């Protein structure tokens, strides 16, 4: 079987994120890295392959992004993916979540995978939704926020993190599964794996190569329009109550909370 892992290049966690006021998009000019959640998805794929219960013939890392995103793919293959696909096209710039999901789904259709894995969220946009959008386009079942995958015959038994506790869900393949960071502890790539990463096949696709309808992608093809952005309001200075008489202080605190309908 074939597993495709969707990965994304994001601003490094150490970089302070800001919106570029000129474009209304996230400023991605600083140091970048492979989205940390995606490393868990690759590790999940590797564990399925190494677990031996499924015959995993190939793990393919796929990304959509500018030229620099090739580095995220290098990291993905150094972590164990067998090859990678880079969808890159000026026409894709500015795509919103729905457009990105459509473009990735078109790319996935060329690969026809049995299982699609991805991180449940990106460290920059944090939409949590790409998996569901991709699954919709592929007409495959979608599971999100999965923190455990077990192979049981032809089905995968997954635990997904729910608001209260966990849901245990069985899913037949093909399926699209987004994973949380609690699912595993990603390995560090060895130096040999890093050196070998550049030797693994890398396919570069344009939007046309992937059969993408240009009217459905890019800023123009996106439904989401960014209006204005502003920084969250600075916190107002707090109220300091000097504790001179404790009974009085308690009364003051209760009155303060009551005023704000907090109690």
């Amino acid at each position, binding site marked *: 079987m074939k597993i495709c892992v969707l990965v994304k290049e994001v601003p490094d966690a150490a970089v302070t994120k800001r919106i570029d006021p000129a474009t209304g998009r996230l400023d991605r000019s600083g140091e970048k*890295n492979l989205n940390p959640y995606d490393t868990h998805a690759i590790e999940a794929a590797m564990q399925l392959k190494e677990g031996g219960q499924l015959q995993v013939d190939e793990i393919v890392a796929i990304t959509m992004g500018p030229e620099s995103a*090739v*580095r995220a793919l*290098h*990291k993905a293959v*150094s972590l164990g993916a067998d090859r990678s696909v880079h969808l890159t096209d000026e026409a894709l710039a500015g795509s919103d979540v729905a457009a990105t999901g459509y473009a990735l789904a078109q790319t996935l259709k060329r690969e026809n995978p049995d299982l699609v894995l991805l991180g449940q969220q990106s460290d920059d946009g944090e939409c949590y939704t790409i998996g569901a959008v991709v699954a919709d386009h592929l007409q495959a079942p979608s599971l999100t926020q999965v923190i455990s995958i077990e192979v049981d015959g032809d089905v995968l038994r997954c635990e997904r993190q729910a608001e209260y506790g966990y849901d245990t869900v069985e899913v037949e393949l093909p399926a699209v599964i987004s994973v949380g960071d609690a699912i595993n502890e990603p390995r*560090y*790539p*060895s*130096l*040999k794996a*890093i*050196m070998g*990463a*550049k030797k693994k096949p890398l396919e570069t696709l344009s939007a046309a190569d992937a059969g993408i309808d240009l009217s459905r992608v890019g800023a123009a093809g996106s439904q989401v329009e960014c209006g204005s952005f502003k920084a969250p309001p600075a916190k107002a200075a707090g109220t300091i109550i000097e504790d001179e008489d404790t009974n009085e202080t308690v009364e003051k605190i209760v009155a303060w909370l009551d005023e704000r309908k907090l109690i």
Partner: protein
Amino acid sequence: MDFDLPDGHELLRRTVREFAEGEVAPVAEALDREKRFPYEIVRRMGELGWMGIPFPEEVGGAGGDTLAYALAVEELARVDSSVAITMCAHTSLGTQPIYLFGTDEQKAQWLPDLTSGRRLGAFGLTEPEAGSDAGNVRTRARLEDGEWVIDGAKQFITNAGTDISGLVCITARTGEDEISNLIVPNGTPGYEQGEPYRKMGWNASDTRPLTFTGCRVPEANLLGPRGNGFKQFLHILDIGRIGVAAMGVGLAQGALDQALAYAKQRRAFGRPISSFQAIQAKLADMSAEIEAARLLVYKAARLKDAGRPFTLTAAQAKLKTGRLAVRCAEEAVQIHGGYGYIEEYPVCRFYRDAKILTIGEGTDEVQQMVIARALGA
């Protein structure tokens, strides 16, 4: 000119950084306090190929180059110098002599275990009366019935006394005006490792005096041609300087990162101390000096990888970075104020770890000698 690291090197740098922050940082304080050798970290670094970075795959190495090695050392030293020097001394002092000067048999016997980190290599050069004057070797080795019989003592030797130490490569006088290198495996009768030193820093690294008393090794343990020992160790030290210089940059960067983070969070007079010019000037100076030093280290590594002469640049890098590490550690402690004098904060350890960088692997004064000689002074 291209100042960007190649993709693979950049990925290695990030990986070592993630490892250092994720696996080393949480235990660094305890290892230092308990003077405990980092066996588990060394084992994992071995699995990742980091205990044999600049050696080709044919001999079990990771097939990297000197730049990759320097980057890894730098990122380790940014978090912990004990772990960095363990890897650094093992690679450029312990393994390099066998890789460069060993016979096919010696390489086959030792390199797979060394480059994988299963065993550690050590280099025994310094003696009580042979430090900067390293040619003044008193340890003697005489041939007797097809064996070298070694008598003498070495001191300040890294990696010789751990549970996984495999060998020490020593310089010994094999004739009146003749120095040769000999391989002495751990466990050889007559070869003993003394108690670890009580050091100012590098507390989790293994440093001991060694004694050789009628210690016999096979004649075939001679490393390279007899009498080449002096030339050989000068070359080894040249290479080693790149690693130690990378440690200086790493420690300085770590000190800056710690100081910056602290300055942004620490408030005085109603605002973060990072908003005060006096603190900003320190941070800015550190940053500018570190970047200059880093370029010098990478240049030395690049020259070596290109097969060009690197002795001068390596000595310049070593001189520059040792002093830089000491100064940055001091400034970082200063920025931390009283907290910088308390062991819970890493800069306190950095301050103690930094000083050896102006002494070990050739003192600043030796670097100045090397540089002045290259200038034709």
